[in-house]
């Protein structure tokens, strides 16, 4: 037994890596949450948007058409984040995993999903560019403002935003488990009030024009960096909350 223990000790770092990859597999066990629903949301919204474009173009409108429909799968990632926490954390504890291993594995799983969906997004955008909006000048994934820095930058933007939304959903689910619905609701209200007071401050100073100018100037690459920065902050917050979560 002692020999086994020592051998295990030596393999510790490799074991740790394989345990984190195990958590990734654990998450993808929820194929419905992690694979099928995102695929259905994305393809459903894509189909609906194209139908609307087709109706519009059939009625003789010629200008390029853009929509916010491609945001839909992005928002769904808040649900994926919450589900990743709710469905798998307790089983990961039964598998004798540390909270750290669960956390790193969860982020890796989210990263894989976000990368996959960003890739699909970029491919759709490239197709739209090549076919001039499916021949009817309608664009779902190709939004000029996001694509200014090229396909890679657009993909990175989509990836960063998806991760950010996932981490928020993940964190809210941890807060809910640890402190209960009352605290979570209060926290969400406080966040809403903070955002609202920010908006009020801008309005009172008549500064909306400057804000929009700033958004335009930072461009999508700036937005990506902001999303990544916030993502890191929220990820750190969720780790600190998870560390003391009990079963």
């Amino acid at each position, binding site marked *: 037994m002692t020999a086994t223990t020592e051998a295990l000790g030596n393999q510790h770092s490799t074991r740790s890596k394989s345990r984190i990859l195990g958590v990734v597999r654990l998450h993808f066990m929820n194929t419905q949450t992690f694979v099928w629903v995102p695929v259905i949301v994305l393809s459903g919204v894509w189909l609906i948007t194209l139908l609307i474009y087709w109706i519009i173009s059939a009625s003789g409108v010629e200008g390029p058409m853009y929509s916010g429909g491609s945001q839909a799968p992005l928002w769904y990632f808040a649900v994926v984040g919450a589900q990743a926490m709710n469905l798998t954390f307790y*089983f990961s504890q039964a598998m*004798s995993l540390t909270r750290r291993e669960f956390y790193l594995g969860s982020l890796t799983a989210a990263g894989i999903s976000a990368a996959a969906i960003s890739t699909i997004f970029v491919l759709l955008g490239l197709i739209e560019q090549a076919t001039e909006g499916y021949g009817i000048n309608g664009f779902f994934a190709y939004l000029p403002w996001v694509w200014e820095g090229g396909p890679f930058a657009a993909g990175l933007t989509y990836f960063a935003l998806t991760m950010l939304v996932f981490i928020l959903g993940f964190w809210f689910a941890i807060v809910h488990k640890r402190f209960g619905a009352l605290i979570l609701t209060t926290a969400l209200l406080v966040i809403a009030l903070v955002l609202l007071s920010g908006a009020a401050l801008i309005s009172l100073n008549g500064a909306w024009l400057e804000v929009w100018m700033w958004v335009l100037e930072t461009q999508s690459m700036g937005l990506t960096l902001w999303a990544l920065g916030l993502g890191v902050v929220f990820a750190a917050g969720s780790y600190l909350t998870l560390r003391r979560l009990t079963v």
Partner: protein
Amino acid sequence: MTSVIDARDLTKKYKHATALDNVSLSIEKDSIYGLLGRNGAGKTTLMSILTAQNFATSGDVEIFGEHPYENARVLNRMCFVRESQKYPEDATAKHAIATARLFFPCWDQSLAEELIDDFRLPLKTPIKKLSRGQQSAVGVIIGLASRAEITFFDEPYLGFDAVARQMFYDRLIADYAECPRTVVLSSHLIDEVANLIENVIVIDRGRIIMDESTEEARTRAVNIVGDADSVQRLVAGREVIHREALGRVSSVTILGQLSDVDREFIADANLDLTPVSLQQLIVRTTQADTTSSNEDENTGPLTDTDVRSLQS
């Protein structure tokens, strides 16, 4: 003997209740422990803290000499099977068992497959759609096949019928013989596990009230069977914890040990001594503790009867 678990002064307080009250214990390597007690006594809380799934308000835990919290080296060697384990939403028994194989270093796949057959566990049905007993079987299979150096079973047989429970006990003993390890089995079916466990820890309202070998525990009481009048003469003035009668024959369980004089009397009156039910002993002890809670903690509730003798 070396201890693999050492807990010192564990206290767990919730807002309105104290789940554990100054619990200290050590658990030896390669032995089967019964963690017994009523519902809400603190069994699950204790096991959760030992596996770092919950945190003590105060006190220390050492597993294999290290603190288990966020310690993969230690957690790796433990397996905790909960009474109502939650599984990922879409998981089937096949998924769960394949995952366990990934994480437990001593996993025995052929044992897992035998157990799947034994319990007739459907592998492709989502776990949430399995019957309660089948869900419990998933946990039991993971717990046994993990062959973890310390395995905790928290009332693992919920929804099991008598056959499945016996199968679990038989499998546990057989595999323990083949691959000795430390097992902590929490249960309220005391008589069923009595022959399985080598050590008994009784917890009541967050406090350990018995922590000794099963053999020692049994010597706390004796059971006398025979002619009702003779039995009555022997047990007069002693604390009787159980009594059954059928015509002229009665069977009485008393607390305390027998003196030589007692044994002579038993031989002369043609009475029989039979093994004591651990369940009766524990039920009686937990009740005694409830009624006389201001008794000195160190001497325990049984002391006054222990010293009583036939001559008095």
